[in-house]
């Protein structure tokens, strides 16, 4: 997985509300139709990094099946970052797409 894409995916997932690590992992896997297989362990250092940058905040809470879990929420700084990263990603994807097309042609 590309450097930085995991951060983007996490932020994107959290836009729908607070979620814990396992939930985020699940969501990424499901929304990408199992295309992006994230090693769950890689998620946590990334979450930690985002938290230190204050793009997300965390709070211990209780999960739907009554387990203690750490819930992450998007902060307003995180929201801005998501917008920025998304457009950057789109531009990058488009650029890569153009390069690949021209090579085909």
């Amino acid at each position: 997985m590309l450097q930085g894409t995991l951060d983007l995916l996490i932020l994107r997932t959290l836009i729908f509300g607070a979620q814990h690590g396992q939930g985020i992992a699940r969501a990424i896997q499901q929304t990408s139709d199992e295309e992006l297989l994230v090693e769950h362990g890689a998620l946590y250092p990334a979450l930690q990094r985002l938290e230190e940058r204050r793009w997300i905040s965390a709070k211990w809470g209780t999960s739907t099946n009554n387990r203690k879990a750490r819930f992450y929420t998007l902060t307003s700084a995180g929201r801005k970052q998501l917008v920025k990263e998304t457009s950057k990603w789109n531009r990058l994807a488009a650029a890569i797409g153009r390069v690949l097309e021209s090579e085909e042609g």
Partner: protein
Amino acid sequence: MFRRTRKASDFGAEIEAHLAMEADRLKEQGLSDEDARTRARVAFGNVTRVQERFYEASRWPGWDHFWQDVRYAARMLRKSPGFTTVAVLTIALGIGATTAIFSLVDATLLHPLPYPHPEELVRIEDALPGAGVTDAGISIPEFKDLQRSGIFQYVVLEIFGSANLTGASQPSRMQYEGVSPPYFAMLGVKPELGQTFDPQDQTPGFTLDVVISDGLWKRAFGSDPHIVGRSLRADDDLYRVIGVMPPGFRDPGRTVGERNTEQWAALGFSDDPAQAPNRSLRLPLETVGRLKPGLTVAAAQSQLDALVASLREQFPDDYPADSKWTVRLVPLKENVVGNVRQSLILLLGAVALVLVIGCVNVANLLLARASARSREMAVRQALGAARQRLVRQLLTESLLLSLLGGVAGLVILFCMKGFLLRLIPESLPRLNDLSINWAVMLLALAASIAAGVIFGLAPARQAGRLNLANTLRVEGRGSKGSTEQTRTRRVLVVTEFALSLVLMVAAGLLLRSFWDLYKAPLGFNPQHVMSVQLWLPSPNDPHTDIYGTAAQEAVFARELLRRSRLLPGVQEAALGAEPSIPLHHDGNRSALIVEGRQTQSKQTPLVERSQVTPEYFHLLEIPVLRGRLFNDGDDENAPLVAVINRAMAETYWRGEDPLGKRLRLGAGRAGVGQRASKTWITIVGVIADARTESLANASVPQIYLSLYQETPKELAIFLRGDLNASAMPEEVRAMVQSVDPELPVYGAQTLNDAVTSSLEQRRFSMEIVGMFALTALLLAGMGIYGVISYIVSERTHEIGIRVALGAQSRNILGMVVREGLELAFAGAAVGLVGALIVSQLMAGLLYGVRPTDPATFAGVALLLIAVALLACYIPARRAIRVDPLVALRYE
């Protein structure tokens, strides 16, 4: 950087929660409990790795490694206390001594004048090279010419003297200075209390306003805050105190006495007590000026030369061509640094050498340790330690070492500050109070760290290049790296020896100079002699002067002598003017006019002169060579007679008989020498030269007058006998004050002390350089010991084989000692060249010994080689005891 808001356990709990939830989800999909948990773990990946990443990310990893290195380094240093102690002490010595000496140099050489814009201050010296006079004094019209020249902001005349301060609990003597009114404005120093003189004041004589020093204010006036406006009685004249100077203020004078001035009086120098202005009447005054801003000394000098040339044309009678009148500008800081620059630079050089030798020694120790630890390094590398990490750790070790040394040096310096300050002779000129220079200290610390890095790097680099297989196989001995190391270490030891030799030659030459001077025949006998000073007031109004005429003072002098002989233990007593005290540095020079030669030139040389009673020469055991000494008949009513020393006879009457020749002396200090300047004086005797003016110079021309004929105001009582040095000053004081209770008695000393203290400055340089040289010798000895020990341990195997093959212990001993001697000889050879250069540079500091003195050079080289031999002998003994069986089985 160290923000760590989250604990690792919290992170661990989150991971646990994740695994539990994932397992829950998988179980919902129908997996068994065990399968679900396994699958969850597999999906998660390496839990430990994730935890490590959390750990690393949440801190600065370098910091952890750094602390780990520091702790490890500290442990290593503790493990070898011998090495650590030696290295730390070496660095401490280097840094402490460098800081101490540099602080001294900073206060004296670098910032000698504590006044604003010190570079503008100059001393103005008149010279008459044609008449052989260097410090010719100045006439008042010349002074006015200087003021009008446009070269100076201010020009100031100064006359130094002392006066009796009366009215306090005990009459005391204080150093005063008569100055032109702009004196304080010129120096740019403001008073602490009150005001100073008006620079525009044009009063021709004394203004009767005085400014006093902080010291006098505290001593005589109990720090009276209302001192301004109070009166002070000096030499029975009433002055008004108008200001008090701040505590650190000192006059930038040339002698200790001048710098200790306690009272300044404004003086116009163009009327009483000075004589009427006259272009050819040179007054023995100091002239100091402040150049116009932006003017360099060189530019000012060329303007001044033009002025002098035009004056010589304008007044040909006053400035005959053959006298070659010139005026020279000397930066005022020369007053302070002129005499000591060479000594201080020598000290600085010596201490720098010690620092370098110290660093070399530490480098040597570090290298030795590095080779001893090459196996450890190899093992650690083999176990996967990164080279970079090893290098960093070794660097940390050497940095820690130099930092410890630096701190230890500063602590020692701080504790010994008082002791070190006391070592510095009082005669060492300085206007600043000495303090430890913190900037220098930081610099020295930085230097030690730099040394640590540089010398830490070499072994660290070698550790990085180790050939693991070889090193591990031969157990750290005989590895390839060690050949290079040994070569480096040999070079270091040779360097140490060379530098030590330079230092020791310097110390040896200083020691010989000191010894020669100490042993030089004085020409007078200082044993069992004391001198005590007193000062007769010379009030500005001659009518109030009870010692005004020679007859009045002669009566007093005879009474003083009579009572002096009655003091306990006194066998002989004599009186003299203050300049007659042997090795008293405030001389009194008068212009000399020889009968029949005055037509040559109107400008005259100056000679040292003083007045003594007839007993003086016998008391000091100075023999008469020709003619006669004074006798009681040479009194105020008899014609003036003089006794000269042999040097004076040689200088002015070479090849002639000086007896019966007549001369006249110019006025010395104001109010003194009136009679001798108007009447011819006949020479009646020639005495042998004695080192009464300077220990280093036995032949200073001197002339003595009879004290009864030419009465001085500043008197010295000389006593010879079985004297109690501690009780005598009080006895003399009581005796003098029984004659006149208003007279201050001071400056009691034994002549032996006077001789000793005039050697003080030389003793100081000699002791310090000697101390450094010994340190250097010790360090060099340690260096060679280390290298030879290392070579022996490295070659244990070889020595074992040799012994097994029948080598005698004599052969082994020779082999090892030869190794050491090679190094010592190489070092000595390089050092001798260096020492020859250095000794030429310090020629000015030597007395009675040539800079190339073969005895010193040979002696020092031999001493150094002896130390090398001794240092090699110990490891050589170890080499002999090598048991071939053990040595061969070792591998």
